[in-house]
């Protein structure tokens, strides 16, 4: 009887097991099944629910300030268009971190100029708040574009910081910690469950291009040959 070696690794039990699970991954199903939308819907639901669920549970157990509104839109982008440049760990981490810094910087700067502005009172809206919010938004926009780390939900982090919701370093690090946790979850879900070459840090635009809507590239008019090319690479 031939041994496994001469039959090839594809005859081993491990290969069959891995083949079975790999063929349930998002990346494979999207290439193999016609109705992509339903697969993406299911993936976004499962990954989004689990990711935010885990952060909430961690926050509940550890009593750490990990829950911030910008996490929601970030999670949506990370699981809906995981192959896009805006969903790369680099963009998510840098944009949120720089957003918090720009919000706090705006707050500090205006506080220095107008020391009696009552800036930490969120219930009272005054001219100083207007300046801080506008400045933080402008700053984070400039920073994200110039540093090529665009991730739109980060603008909300800048506003949170600018409006004085982050009152101490514990909360600041809580927000950044939550972002890191979300990125780790995205790496797990997109790479292991999704079977996608989700980047560990920086996105590769060349790879992203191959993933169409998963990279946030809208579907344009599909020609006969384009459709057939997609079919060419499906399972036979």
């Amino acid at each position, binding site marked *: 009887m031939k041994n496994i070696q001469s039959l090839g*690794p*594809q005859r081993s039990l491990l290969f069959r097991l891995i083949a079975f699970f790999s*063929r349930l991954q998002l990346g*494979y199903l999207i290439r193999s099944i016609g109705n992509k939308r339903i697969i993406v819907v299911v993936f976004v639901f499962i990954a989004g629910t689990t990711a935010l669920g885990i952060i909430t549970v961690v926050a509940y157990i550890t009593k750490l300030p990990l829950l911030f509104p910008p996490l929601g839109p970030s999670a949506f982008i990370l699981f809906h268009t995981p192959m896009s440049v805006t969903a790369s760990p680099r963009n998510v981490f840098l944009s949120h971190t720089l957003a918090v810094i720009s919000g706090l910087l705006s707050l500090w700067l205006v506080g220095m100029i107008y020391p009696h502005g009552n800036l930490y009172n969120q219930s009272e809206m005054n001219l100083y708040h207007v300046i801080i919010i506008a400045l933080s938004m402008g700053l984070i926009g400039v920073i994200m574009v110039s540093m090529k780390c665009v991730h739109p939900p980060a603008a909300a982090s800048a506003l949170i910081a600018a409006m004085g919701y982050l009152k101490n370093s514990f909360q600041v690090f809580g927000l950044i910690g939550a972002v890191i946790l979300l990125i780790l979850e995205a790496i797990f879900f997109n790479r292991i469950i999704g079977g996608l070459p989700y980047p560990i840090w920086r996105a590769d635009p060349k790879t992203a291009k191959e993933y169409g809507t998963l990279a946030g590239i809208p579907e344009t008019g599909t020609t006969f*040959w*384009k459709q*057939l*090319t997609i079919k*060419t690479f499906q*399972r036979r």
Partner: protein
Amino acid sequence: MGFIEKIRRHSTIATGNFGVMFKDIEIPPLPAAVNRLIVETNKAEPDIDNVVRLISSTTAIAAKVIKTVNSSLFSLRVPVTDIKRAVTQLGLNHIRSIALAFATMDALPKPKGDLFDHKAFWIDSLIRAIMSRSFSKKSFEDQPEKAFTASLLADVALPVLLCVWKEYYEPVIEEWHKSPKRLSEIEREHFGWDHSQAGAWIVQSWGFPEEMVCYIGAHNLSMEKIGEYELDNTIVVPMAVASNLSSILRPDGERSRRVFSMAIQWLSMTRLEFINCITEVKASLKDILELFGLSGRNAGSILDDLLVEAGSEIQKEEM
């Protein structure tokens, strides 16, 4: 190899994720001049001077073009020595086929070991390509060169897979050598994909048009599947018929019969037309193999088998 790496490789093969499969290796790029030449000759109004310039910039291709135009295939009375005249004589489609064939042959890796015979592989590819071209002349008279190119590139993935995914792919080739099944059937049983899909991916990465990618990806499908893909009125049909031809290393009478019956049924050829086609292929084969430096093998014997097959069918009918 670590356990995680093993899992990653198993998963990549099992899902036929060619982007990842060929990511870690450099798919040999076509020489830049050849790429530009293909782009130029594909234009609606190609610039002949630019084509001449591009050919002249690659000495090896220029030499082959001159050799081709002066070969007995064209039987010119006065030998051609300059590229511009050679281009005019051969035509742009022919130039494209020559350039591509030479470039591909140079670009692809040569797997080590007894399982892969580099020379036989290219002879098989060339015979199928010439056959596709000849079969296409009847129903697709403006596309025989396209059929030649697509058939020539149809199996490009084989040497690449044997080099990069050797431990998975060698058992497939071994099984194929011992089995009457087609290679693509065995590949699908093992992996769920076949080398035509991998080849289509490589050709796509070389920047070929989607149409060509589809032709290559479908060349070994059954006629029912080709119909399902709505390709039954394209050069995929002659390509599919030619792809059934057995290798020069393993002549197979059953496959010769299959090629003959498929040509009659799917290409609506008469027996006489089929014989004429194969005779034409045989006549040009020697020169083409010589041109590509592949002479020295008894490549014509499988074409003789086809002629014998067609002859015996005619005899049966007459009786």
